[in-house]
């Protein structure tokens, strides 16, 4: 493939989209995992195993978010802009170069097998690739690792002194954003190190795959299958809908089956989830586009990362506990819907004002929903944390 900046930007953007989609897909599965014996289908001992599986999937999802942030750093360093958009779930098999569908599916053998496929190391791939194509056509690759190999090839074949721009864009580090392993990108060496880190976390290395995403999913799948064989009544996941949506909008239903949440309360909570998720992404995008010199970058990163763990996670879990209202025993779930593609404006004071206002509105909505008798306990946690986040943004204005 011929090297060009536009080709590199295109590949990196695709990597961002893919990392982002994988993180959501993994999170959805983790949200669906039962947390309490009251939910039935598992013994105390099985619950301990299930908790471990959940923590491992959350860990992998967090590393996918790191990969997304890392790809943003590379993008920003080579003349791009942090890209957080992606098509809504589900994506058809042919959408990405690796010919695997992306979907929101509850924890279970089917989802885990898909996850293993995404992260399969290059030397274990069996699907043939027809041909690497030119700039105008979709790129073919067999796994996430192979996509990064293409990016690596581009970086190696472009002149370093022209590829990287002077300035601080692309240099977001762990001091500004709490991704412990994020590498600031200044040159070819740091860019290649970042790609190696991403690939190693996903696939492992030639001599050690034991701790990679690939291995984690394989290990979890094997444990799950063994336990199911031993105890057929074992059911570790909540019966969440596949690809749930709180409402039919825009591009949804274009490429695969979606399932509408019919319970009004769950639907409202689904909307809230999507809105918090969208705000979180917009904050991160603004911070990474501005770079570490920005006065609000640290605040936006802190706020967004806090929101991931203290608001989005409990909201996602709350949704997975609620009835979908479809009368078939199914539960609702988080749609990870991206419906309002409005980035925050570059001007920091305006971005801060808009973000604070949005967080305040969302906190009010959460407070209202939390008063409902339907509200699972996780909603109360999310509501309290969202209020705190809104307060932090407001006090920074």
């Amino acid at each position, binding site marked *: 493939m011929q090297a060009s900046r536009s080709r590199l930007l295109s590949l990196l953007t695709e990597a961002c989209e893919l990392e982002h989609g994988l993180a959501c897909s993994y999170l959805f599965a983790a949200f669906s995992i039962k947390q309490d014996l009251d939910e039935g289908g598992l013994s*105390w001992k099985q619950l301990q195993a299930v908790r*471990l599986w959940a923590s491992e999937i959350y*860990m992998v999802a967090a590393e996918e978010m790191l990969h997304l942030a890392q790809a943003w750093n590379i993008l920003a360093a080579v003349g791009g802009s942090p890209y957080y958009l992606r098509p809504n779930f589900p994506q058809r098999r042919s959408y990405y170069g690796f010919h695997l569908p992306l979907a929101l599916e509850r924890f279970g053998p089917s989802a885990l097998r898909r996850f293993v496929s995404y992260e399969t190391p290059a030397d274990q791939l069996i699907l043939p690739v027809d041909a690497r194509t030119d700039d105008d056509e979709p790129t073919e690759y067999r796994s996430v690792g192979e996509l990064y190999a293409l990016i690596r090839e581009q970086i190696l074949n472009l002149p370093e002194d022209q590829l990287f721009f002077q300035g601080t864009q692309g240099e977001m580090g762990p001091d500004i954003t709490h991704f412990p*392993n994020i590498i600031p990108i200044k040159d070819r060496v740091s860019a290649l190190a970042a790609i190696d880190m991403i690939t190693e976390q996903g696939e492992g290395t030639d001599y050690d795959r034991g701790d990679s995403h690939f291995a*984690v999913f394989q290990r979890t799948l094997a444990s799950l299958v063994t336990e199911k064989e031993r105890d057929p009544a074992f059911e570790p996941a909540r019966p969440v809908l596949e690809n749930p949506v709180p409402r039919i909008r825009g591009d949804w239903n274009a490429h695969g089956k979606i399932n509408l949440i019919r319970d009004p309360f769950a639907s409202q909570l689904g909307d809230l989830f999507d809105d918090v998720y969208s705000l979180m992404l917009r904050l991160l995008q603004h911070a990474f586009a501005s770079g570490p010199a920005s006065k609000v970058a640290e605040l936006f990163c802190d706020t967004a990362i806090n929101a991931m763990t203290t608001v989005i996670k409990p909201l996602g879990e709350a949704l997975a506990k609620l009835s979908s209202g479809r009368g078939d025993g199914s539960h609702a779930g988080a749609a990870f819907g991206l419906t309002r593609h409005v980035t925050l404006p570059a001007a920091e004071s305006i971005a801060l004002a808009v973000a604070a206002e949005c967080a305040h509105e969302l906190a009010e909505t959460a407070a209202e929903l939390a008063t409902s008798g339907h509200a699972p306990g996780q909603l109360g946690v999310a509501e309290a944390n969202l209020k705190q986040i809104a307060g932090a943004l407001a006090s920074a204005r």
Partner: protein
Amino acid sequence: MSDDLDRCDVAVVGAGVAGALIAYRLAAANYRVVMLEAGPAGRNRQDLVADYSLAAIKTPRSPYADNQPSSPVWSPDSEKDYIQLGPSPFKSTYLRRVGGSTWHMLGNMPRHVPADFRLATSYGVGVDWPIDYDDLEPWYCEAETELGVAGDHAELNGLHGAYRSRAFPMSKIWPAYGDIFVAKAVEGLTFEGADVRVLTTPQARNSRPYDGRPACAGNSSCVPICPIGAKYDATVHVSKATTAGAVLRTQAVVTRIELDSMTRRVSALRYTRWDEQGRRDERRLRADIYVIAAHSIETPRLLLISSDSDAAPTGVANGSGQVGRNLMDHLQGQMAAVVPQPLFPYRGPPTTVGVDTFRDGTFRASHAAFRLSIGNDGMGRVETPFAALEQKLVEGLIGSRLRVALGDRLIRQFRISYSTEMLPSAHNRVTLADAVSDSFGMPRAQLSLHLEDYNRLAFEKAAALISSIFDRLEIPDSDRKPQPKDTYSGAGHIIGTTRMGTDAGSSVVNQHCRAHEHDNLFIVGASTFPTGGTANPTLTVAALALRAASKISSLLQRGS
């Protein structure tokens, strides 16, 4: 390798971290290794966690039913379980089971700093080690890789001169919210002329999946048990050792080290296999090399019990009279508080950062070095969440008022603890209580300890430093709970009792942990430390064990 073997290349007593690492390295090099562990292998981790969950009173021993007093290898759970000769109590405990005390360790893995090896030369107190930091540095790197230590290389490289030649195998455990808050609050603080800096604590706790074990999920119950195995414990290397061909014999209490009366070399280990039905089976194991790795109380106990009127009249390896002497711990205290702002403890491990500023300095001539550990576990031992609940109930709160009040208090609980270095002292020691035997007929250990001014002064300094940090956090005096004067707790760091040195007249083993008097006997573990420094001992134990394994391997190759 057959399990009924009575002859092997290397016999290892104790399946804790030191014994397991040596067994693993030597078995991997194709030597015939047998491990004898007094305690049980126990049940699987989930059963242990279940027992901990069900325990009405949570202590470090709660998960380990087979180490409770009904067991012939019961393990101490508090100072009351020892025969104390005083004048001050010895408070740290240990665990007799496969994996040893690493089961209930916190998991912090700092290195010693260079001056820790040269205390006498640098400050005129204590003794020097026969090795220095440079000798051990490559082995520290090996140990960090074997145990899986997460840490911040750039931040810790060069700490008090402790250079690092290799990065940690994992990036650091990310500081908890409260830790970041406290670090910001102390920015610019100085104490006795030194900058107070909050540094990350290296720990054998996975920050990512590592060595087939998961990343830490923040269960925050590291002491007494990690429910998912994200924290290292020595069962990792026991398993690797047996996979490499080593034989593990559990419930095998070594009752005597036998010596050849002519050569004074160790000729055999006499041991008793026991079971829960009360059956006992006496056996003997012979080897080319013997390794005693039974921790700093059981090791000297066994050496002293094995006295031989001819070959070792005062105990095995005790020609210097130093076996059992120089018993040390890191005497601890803590100050707790209710902070005005919420710090949200218990999200993540019990501690992720500390203050290492006073781990070295010229003050060591007059008072102990100390390290502060910034807690992420509320008030720690001062007021548990259960105690806070009880207090609120006593105050008459119920229902939503109780929930709100408790929620408000628990998210603002905070503690900082300090660990101080003890100097080696001949009268702090393990001896045999000849009149009191265990169920194997072996005299029990009795302990003597003296609290010295060297530590008392450090307690005062550490408390003053914590007070200045509490000032930065704007904590009112009424919300502070200081440590009562001259009181302390144990750190679980049992050190000394078979110290290493170059002089056979004043030490038990040489720089390779080889006994001066019995050239096929190695003694490993924290018992060999001449001084204690302020580092949690496990990483240094592991580094010395790996170094000793290398030495043993070279001896076996030479056939000596």
